């Protein structure tokens, strides 16, 4: 919400500056501007300030002093300067001579002192703590190898404009996805969505008979349960009867999830969802977090949070904290699964401060409450556990991201940029991207790609040593971590036609030098950044663009396959790849944009990665 609001604000400002706004983004942001109350307030504030400025400081405002008077002052000043210069020049020469003598003496003194052993090792000063990080040399570009032969793909499903990539079952046997449709008849002008299960092995799709009025995002409403069932909270589905003026086809009164308080367990190809609503004593609105080891699912109800056991499907309420009234909370499970953190706005200082609660999952007791000196309107920062006693807060604003260490009785909050990196940057404008990664060995890494006019470097912080490395290559960066995880940071200010260069960095690997891989076949892209995804065997990377999808082996850079998405006659925009947990299949979802101005259409493609 905050990101789109910022983007919409920027879009509005660009529009003012001679229509620089990106037309592609215009549709999405235009509708956001039209519907978001604070955007409307911004626009009216803008107009109000301009109107007041025109009254208060009119264009015709003139200084009392005439141009002639000013020029006379300038002439007098210049004449004075010339007089001073005549006097000052000999003084300046003398001062230079004295300075040079001091300089020579100082050099002699320094040479003499360097020959002596220091009696005491000085303690590191604050400046020394942030000594310039070791700079890693730019590697030579290495193009991906292999014949670039594109295999055309046909979509297995098509839908309306909205698209989402879907969620794989843990065993990779099903993909649960939503397909929007644009109906005729009584619901013309609206959209409805169907819920679908793709069985990739056979290519069959089972569609549930229930529909959702208008497109919703499954991201916080659906998760896979054990035994290949889906936990689904269709809360944002609007019951058609609640919409004045809408009429529902009379033969389909039960064809929609009503969405008022439903919690369901869906089974692939089973038309009868299991209603779990009686496990809760109140309406439940979302499914914001889950712990895959449990599996436990956190659900947000009207007045309480609830924990649902994925095996027994029993639910229990959490007494404290209660969900915030604006639905702005963020949640995150600790690495062990034993603790859960919830951050919510501080009602006393809304928009300025947040409260972080940490509680034990087993007892439901809050064990920590920490005030976070950062807040946002209509939103709270994302939180991410790094270690069992360390949480990363993705704060915006001047402070930038924060690190909360509650290993001591009094939690310590560190501003990451100045505190760990020694950098003075404003988030998110002066660095493009950031990422964190933690491993089971109890160490973590934080990386930033900076984007100031004079600095385009990428910085990597190592928690184990406290050291920061600097990578000066102005390319996309791929950090490959020892546990097989990877994180990517896109290059700033990219262009659709610029080469897709990825600097591969093997973190904590003393032998493997960074490499610069040039990924071929994706230019020009329909979107600036080529986004990589790792496949489960961790030796390959998969890339998607409007040109298609390619798979490249990390070591050796071998091109293992290239699939084209050209069949729909338009340009696939922002394709998303989702690789199955087994690595056998990948599903690509894309919005297809047409040059003739036809409405966008969604398309889903299936790729068999391994025979």
């Amino acid at each position, binding site marked *: 919400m905050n990101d789109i609001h910022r983007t919409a604000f920027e879009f509005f400002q660009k529009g003012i500056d001679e229509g620089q706004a990106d037309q592609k983004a215009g549709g999405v942001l235009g509708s956001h501007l039209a519907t978001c109350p604070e955007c409307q307030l911004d626009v009216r*504030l803008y107009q109000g300030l301009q109107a007041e400025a025109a009254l208060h400081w009119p264009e015709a405002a003139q200084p009392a002093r005439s141009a002639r008077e000013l020029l006379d002052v300038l002439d007098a000043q210049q004449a004075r300067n010339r007089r001073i210069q005549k006097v000052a020049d000999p003084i300046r020469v003398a001062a230079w001579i004295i300075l040079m003598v001091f300089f020579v003496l100082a050099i002699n003194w320094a040479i003499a002192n360097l020959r002596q052993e220091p009696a005491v090792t000085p303690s590191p000063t604050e400046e020394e703590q942030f000594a310039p990080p070791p700079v890693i040399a730019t590697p030579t570009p290495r193009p991906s190898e292999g014949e670039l032969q594109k295999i055309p793909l046909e979509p297995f499903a098509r839908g309306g404009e909205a698209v989402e990539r879907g969620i794989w079952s843990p065993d990779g046997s099903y993909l649960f996805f939503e397909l929007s449709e644009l109906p005729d008849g009584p619901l013309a002008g609206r959209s409805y969505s169907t819920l679908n299960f793709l069985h990739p092995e056979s290519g069959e799709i089972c569609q549930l008979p229930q529909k959702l009025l208008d497109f919703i995002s499954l991201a916080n409403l659906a998760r896979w349960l054990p035994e290949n069932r889906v936990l689904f909270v269709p809360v944002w589905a609007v019951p058609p009867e609640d919409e004045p003026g809408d009429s529902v086809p009379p033969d389909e009164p039960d064809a929609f999830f009503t969405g008022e308080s439903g919690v369901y367990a869906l089974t692939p190809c089973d038309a009868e969802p299991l209603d779990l609503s009686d496990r809760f004593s109140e309406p439940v609105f979302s499914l914001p977090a889950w712990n895959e080891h449990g599996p436990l699912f956190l659900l947000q109800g009207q007045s309480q949070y609830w924990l649902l056991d994925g095996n027994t499907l029993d639910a229990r309420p959490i007494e404290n904290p209660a969900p915030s009234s604006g639905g702005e909370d963020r949640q995150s499970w600790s690495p062990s699964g034993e603790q859960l953190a919830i951050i919510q706005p501080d009602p006393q200082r809304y928009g300025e401060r947040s409260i972080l609660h940490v509680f034990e999952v087993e007892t439901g007791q809050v064990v920590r409450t920490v005030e976070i000196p950062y807040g946002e309107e209509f939103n709270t920062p994302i939180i991410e556990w790094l270690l069992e006693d360390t949480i990363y807060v993705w704060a915006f604003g001047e402070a930038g991201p924060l690190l909360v260490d509650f290993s001591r009785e009094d939690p310590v909050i560190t501003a990451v940029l100045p505190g760990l990196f020694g950098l003075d940057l404003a988030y998110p404008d002066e660095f493009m991207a950031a990422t964190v990664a933690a491993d089971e060995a109890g160490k973590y890494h934080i990386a930033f790609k900076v984007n100031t006019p004079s600095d385009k470097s990428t910085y990597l912080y190592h928690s184990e040593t406290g050291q920061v490395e600097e990578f000066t290559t102005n390319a996309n960066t791929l950090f490959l971590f020892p546990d097989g995880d990877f994180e990517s940071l896109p290059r700033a200010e990219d262009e659709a036609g610029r080469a897709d260069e990825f600097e591969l960095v093997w973190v904590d690997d003393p032998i493997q030098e960074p490499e610069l891989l040039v990924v071929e076949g994706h230019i020009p892209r329909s979107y600036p950044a080529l986004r990589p995804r790792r496949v489960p065997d961790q030796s390959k990377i998969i890339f998607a663009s409007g040109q298609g999808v390619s798979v490249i082996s990390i070591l050796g850079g071998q091109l293992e396959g290239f699939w084209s998405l050209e069949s729909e006659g338009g340009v696939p925009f922002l394709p998303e790849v989702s690789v199955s947990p087994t690595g056998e299949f990948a599903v690509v979802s894309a919005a297809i944009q047409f040059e003739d101005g036809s409405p966008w259409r969604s398309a889903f493609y299936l790729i068999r990665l391994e025979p």
Partner: protein
Amino acid sequence: MDGIQVDLDGLLKTRPAGDSEVIEAMVGGYRAPVYRLALSILNDADEAEDAVQDTFLRAAAGIHRYQIGTNFKAWIYTIAVNTCRDYLRKRAARAARDKVLKAIHVLTEEAPDPEAAAIQKESRTRLWDLVNQLGEKHRLVVILRLANNLSIEEISQILEIHEKTVYSRLYDAFKKLRQQLIQLPEYDNYWFEEGS
């Protein structure tokens, strides 16, 4: 304004930087806009007059550092903004000193004339009062953008910050303004009637 810039660049190609014709063209072309800029930042006509004079003194002394073909308007606005910042700092120092003097009863403040205060309050701009409560870096961006109608690119050049930072400061400034605005008791009544 662009025409003036071209003329000035043309002059600078054929004449030395300190030439009287160059200085006259600079003062003639930018006297009024620099005054308006100073007035919008300082909100005080006398101080703005002085700031304009200081701006042109600095510009005349440093005009040889201007690179022909870049953006003269941005160059002189940068000098003007920095000059105004100096004035603001002096003003803050004066205020701090006055506060101390008042605290030790050395300075006796005259009782304000109620009628003059009412007139002054009436003439004040309501939304810009909120802007004036912002910190300097947010306030400056709003002033340059909305009181001086400068583009994001120009503001970026003048303040010597990245364009993204200009967007961010403007966004943060509007966020703060919104928060202040909705707390005003008269918010529901006067807020943006048509034509206000």
